[in-house]
């Protein structure tokens, strides 16, 4: 296929004049096929095809020297309680069991709390860990050993108090469907580094996809080439990856060769360079059949690694997904998004109570997360991999009293006013804590950080000026940090 490949390269330049390429391709053809710098003659409202000016800024990407090349985003869907994990509030312990003061309830909307709830102190003991002295609860014993790699942002806040809109806001900068996800923007801005795998891969565990659905990794108004590809850790990692039962790779190879020859003939007759791209599309799919299967094969990892992550090949688990995230990062995947469901600790049932399912969730993520950070560091990947952890909002310092009654299990309601996220690696200042909540962890009050600020900051670390990476849609130059909302780069958390 050498000859064909050369031809593809040759025709690439011509194709650029005919179809609109959203990005310059600095890595040759690598990016054409999967996400990244792909052919996408998408007609946005402003006619990307005829108004290249609207993209001029993004052509100069990265806008400045990137600190991170890739992202691993660990989303704890349902939103874990900051008050049982990282935001230590002794004052709340004092108030435990007392009626919530009226001043805390005025003008508030809750998903489930009714009437006057009781205050609820931290349910687990905290201790200071590492050289940085970060407070971490005893639910995260392994994580306690890596806190010096991490920067906590305790002053996250959001405008949304329901899961779906809050997840959309956190991942797309807009609580409504239709905007592009952080991963899609990253692909649009920086393209793919992998020739054999999608550049934006999504892994889901916990038995449930996020409340906001697949839109949290969608491309929204951006061309669909930039959307995340959901992969599974058991069975076919990618939809339609396996050949039909009776077809071997050898047969497939021959059939593709035949198709390529037919297409080549069509190209010779018509001179349409798009045909060559179609040919490469099949080649890419064929390579992916081999490489994706290889990338997702956890059997290749040794016993020590499995012990580190606490993983078992063939199972669907957050741990497996963490290990996969490291394998994908090694293979040049740009944006790896993990979702782990089950953190919605209302206390309405044991499975979702702070004194029930919450403990299990912690056990499921604690070891793999510590393993992932250690593993990335040992392999030299942590310095240019940005690891982000968090939920879509926080939880109330009050105990949930669904229906106005004390419930059998202990839980907390949704709280958009304060939550904790942490970041590590790629340009993040390690071993610090940024921002503060009030005495009871109810509202972020010092150095508040919104999802828009977070987006501006994370894009900055990737070398992207959040104001300059834009896409015309609905008459506005849209951006991840949301053009209608204020946003700032939180320089204080950068190394």
């Amino acid at each position: 296929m050498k000859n064909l490949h050369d031809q593809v390269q040759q025709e690439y330049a011509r194709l650029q004049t005919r179809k609109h390429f959203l990005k310059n391709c600095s890595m040759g053809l690598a990016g054409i096929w999967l996400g990244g710098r792909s052919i996408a003659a998408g007609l946005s409202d402003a006619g990307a095809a005829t108004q290249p000016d609207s993209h001029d800024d993004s052509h100069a990407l990265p806008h400045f020297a990137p600190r991170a090349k890739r992202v691993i985003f660990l989303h704890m869907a349902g939103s874990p309680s900051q008050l049982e994990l990282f935001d230590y509030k002794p004052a709340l312990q004092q108030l435990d069991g007392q009626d919530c003061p009226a001043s805390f309830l005025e003008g508030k909307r809750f998903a489930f709390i009714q009437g006057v709830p009781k205050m609820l102190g931290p349910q687990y003991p905290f201790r200071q860990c590492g050289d940085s002295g970060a407070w971490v609860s005893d639910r995260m014993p392994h994580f306690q050993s890596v806190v010096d790699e991490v920067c906590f942002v305790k002053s996250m806040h959001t405008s949304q108090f329901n899961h779906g809109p809050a997840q959309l806001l956190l991942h797309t900068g807009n609580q409504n469907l239709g905007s592009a996800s952080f991963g899609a923007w990253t692909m649009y801005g920086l393209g793919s580094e992998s020739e054999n795998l999608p550049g934006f891969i999504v892994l889901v565990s916990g038995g449930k996809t996020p409340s906001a659905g697949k839109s949290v990794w969608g491309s929204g108004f951006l061309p669909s080439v930039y959307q995340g590809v959901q992969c599974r850790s058991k069975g076919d990692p990618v939809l339609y990856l396996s050949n039909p039962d009776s077809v071997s790779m050898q047969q497939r190879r021959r059939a593709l060769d035949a198709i390529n020859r037919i297409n080549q003939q069509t190209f010779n007759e018509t001179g349409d360079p798009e045909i060559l791209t179609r040919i490469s599309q099949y080649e890419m799919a064929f390579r992916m059949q081999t490489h994706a299967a290889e990338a997702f094969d956890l059997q290749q990892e040794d016993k020590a690694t499995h012990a580190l992550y606490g993983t078992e090949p063939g199972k669907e688990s957050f741990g497996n997904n963490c290990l996969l995230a490291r394998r994908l990062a090694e293979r040049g995947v740009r944006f790896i998004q993990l979702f782990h469901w089950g953190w919605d600790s209302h206390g309405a049932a044991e499975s979702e109570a702070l004194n029930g399912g919450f403990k299990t969730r912690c056990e499921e993520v604690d070891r793999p997360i510590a393993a992932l950070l250690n593993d990335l560091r040992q392999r030299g990947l942590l310095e240019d991999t940005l690891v982000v952890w968090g939920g879509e909002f926080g939880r109330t310092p009050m105990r949930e009293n669904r229906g106005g009654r004390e419930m059998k299990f202990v839980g907390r309601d949704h709280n958009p006013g304060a939550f904790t996220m942490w970041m590590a690696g790629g340009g993040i200042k390690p071993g610090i804590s940024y921002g503060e909540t009030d005495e009871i962890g109810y509202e972020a009050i010092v150095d508040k950080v919104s999802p828009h600020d977070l987006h501006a900051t994370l894009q900055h670390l990737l070398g992207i000026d959040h104001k300059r990476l834009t896409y015309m849609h609905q008459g506005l130059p849209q951006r991840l940090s949301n053009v209608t909302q204020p946003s700032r780069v939180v320089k204080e958390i950068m190394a």
Partner: protein
Amino acid sequence: MLARSRRHAVVPFAVFTALVCGLIAGSVRAEESAEDVRFYEQKIRPLLVRHCYECHSEEAGEQQGGLLLDRRSGWIEGGETDKAVVPGQPDASLLVTAIRYDDDNLQMPPDQRLDDEAIALFEQWVQRGAIGPADDMGETEFSRLGDQEYLFDQAAGHWAFQPVAPVTLPSSPSSRGEWGTNAIDRFVADSLAEVALAPSDPADPATLLRRLHHDLTGLPPTYDQITAFVEAAQIDRDAATRQWIDRLIASPEFGQHLGRLWLDVVRYGDTDNNYRPDTRTPHYHPFAFSYRDYVVRSLNDDKPFDQFLKEQMAADLMGFAPDAPEMAALGFYASGPYSSRAQAEALDDWIDVTTRGLMGITAACARCHDHKFEPVPTADYYSLRGVFAAAARVNPLDETKQPILASYRPTPAEVADYQKKRATIDAKIDGADGKKAKNNNRSIAQKIRETELAELLTFHPGAPARAMVLADRKRPPESYVFIRGDASARGEAVPRRFLKILDPQQDAFPQDSSGRLELAEKIASAGNPLTARVFVNRVWGHLIGSHLVTTPSDFGLQGSRPTHPELLDWLADDFLRHDWSVKHLVRRIVSSQTYQQSSRSHEAGQAADPENRWLWRGNRKHLSIEAIRDSMLLVAGQLDRRIGGHPGRLWDGDYTRRRAIYGFINRFNLDPTLRAFDFPAPVQTQPARGESIVAPQALFTMNAPLVIDQAAAIVSSADFLRIKHDRPKLVSLFQSVLGRDPDAAEIARALKLVEFQKRFQNPDRPPSRFIDSPWPLIAQALLMCNEFQYVD
């Protein structure tokens, strides 16, 4: 944040013009002492650059809150809230208040308070008169963003806002030989002549027929049809083409194919964009399909487009009987992506689909402030919002308020089966009466209605069709501007009325009505300069493969200019003269020699116009995912051609063999295969589909069960099985899949592949989807090749 009142309210237009010329700026400067300017340049400007420019300067491309701090007019006129500076009065100046951090809601810069020394310098500067820079840039293009007076002035001469008027045809067609019998060709030939290019030869008859079939019906012609057409064309090409075009336009597949274009525009889906977390089911719109069927039927009946629009916007106000088929048209709004619980977003969606979808104007952008780039003041947004807020929606599952449509006639067997299943579910609902779910206190009966019953209503062919309707409230509520889009910050009351740019008088719609019908009449009007142009451009793009205006949903100041402005106007005028007949419009376009040109490229054309903007050849078009799927089913003899009815699964499990337009569209979780093939997310009106080429598309054609099944079906037909030898088998495959005979080289190559694949035959292997024969793979190879997936 400092925010502004309208700049033109402060500076009258004449003064503003003078400012541009620098006259006033000059005179102001004359009064300033050199010392004041030096103070500004040495003390103040560095502070502004360091702390403020990031969000308030042309250099950074930002004027947050409408405030610019890189020029005197910026701080004097201020932003959305008020003037930033009152010269001589630091305590009355918002800028000083903001930097002092006196007001909790107005603290600038937001990161950190300036030190006291810097604040003192600003106070001093304001005290001295807030003198500006030595090189004040005054008004610039950038600072005028959002200046509605300026934008209206610009819009006065904008092409798309001019009335559609008759256009004189370019003269002397004789000089262009055969070209020029169809008016379209004269315009195109004229433009080509200007760039010294000539049109291409007509496509050969077989290619033309395939193009016509795909463009008009979304399906390829059969080998026999091609043969018949080629023979007829040898006798009289023009007559044969005309006849064939008429036949295809009259076929029921016409509406099924063109209807899909319209469904993209109206963001059609069978659910809303949310789901129920406890039952993990989408919010079904079980009757949305009646709207989809209305669209297909209207196009097939050639309902005048203005009537088509009016019915979609206001059928409930047009005097139809409650169960008239036209009532299904209201699904245009009623089956939208937002539930009535998200009222603000639902209204925003309706405004967007109405203005951008029907008229190519981005009015939804004016929700929080006057449009930055278009002549749409925020009052216009709230005028339209008032119209829509007057409509009450019905719960999509409510069977009492959505009329049954007699036009849908399932078979008695289907009805009987539906009734049986329905009775079971109804009994279950009755049995759950009064019971509540343990974990969230929701009524169990309600849960069953939302899941089992909704699924039965959505998918069962025997379930009735109902119209998703709207009805106006008795008394339309007052509409107010929400300042910065915030519902708690009410501004002035605005009457229900049309957009100012299209209706400068802006007479209010009648007090006692919602104005929805009046709005429909303003939009579906020959006097509206946008409606016909926008639709004509959409149809042109659909058939030609490139648009005259490459921003199909943005005809405003920011949109692209048409490549052939006169042609666009001529087509729009012609469309209006022919009573908004969509079939006439389509016939007009496909009858042109422009449409019928060969798609072959040549060096001269490639050099002069590589994008084919001037249409020196036909465009090669990639098939949509719907057309690929339907074509595969067709050539495999599996396509179920029934029209209308409940949606089915496109490729999962026991997938439907009906056309893809009848596939179930889940807005909340859009099917990954649809998404991989650029199917637009049906949560907003879509200008046009993207064209991406990604590996998941290849994996679909390589391995999806639907494709494998069709390949197997092609080679298990009785006709194919009757053929004994490899060579005639191959010929048969080329004929049925590609509609042509293979040439000698193709046969030789394909035979080699057959030989190779035969080696893998193993009689001991268990039977699977791919029967134990080389032929399914060969058939699939043809389905996978470019020739099958492109239209030349």
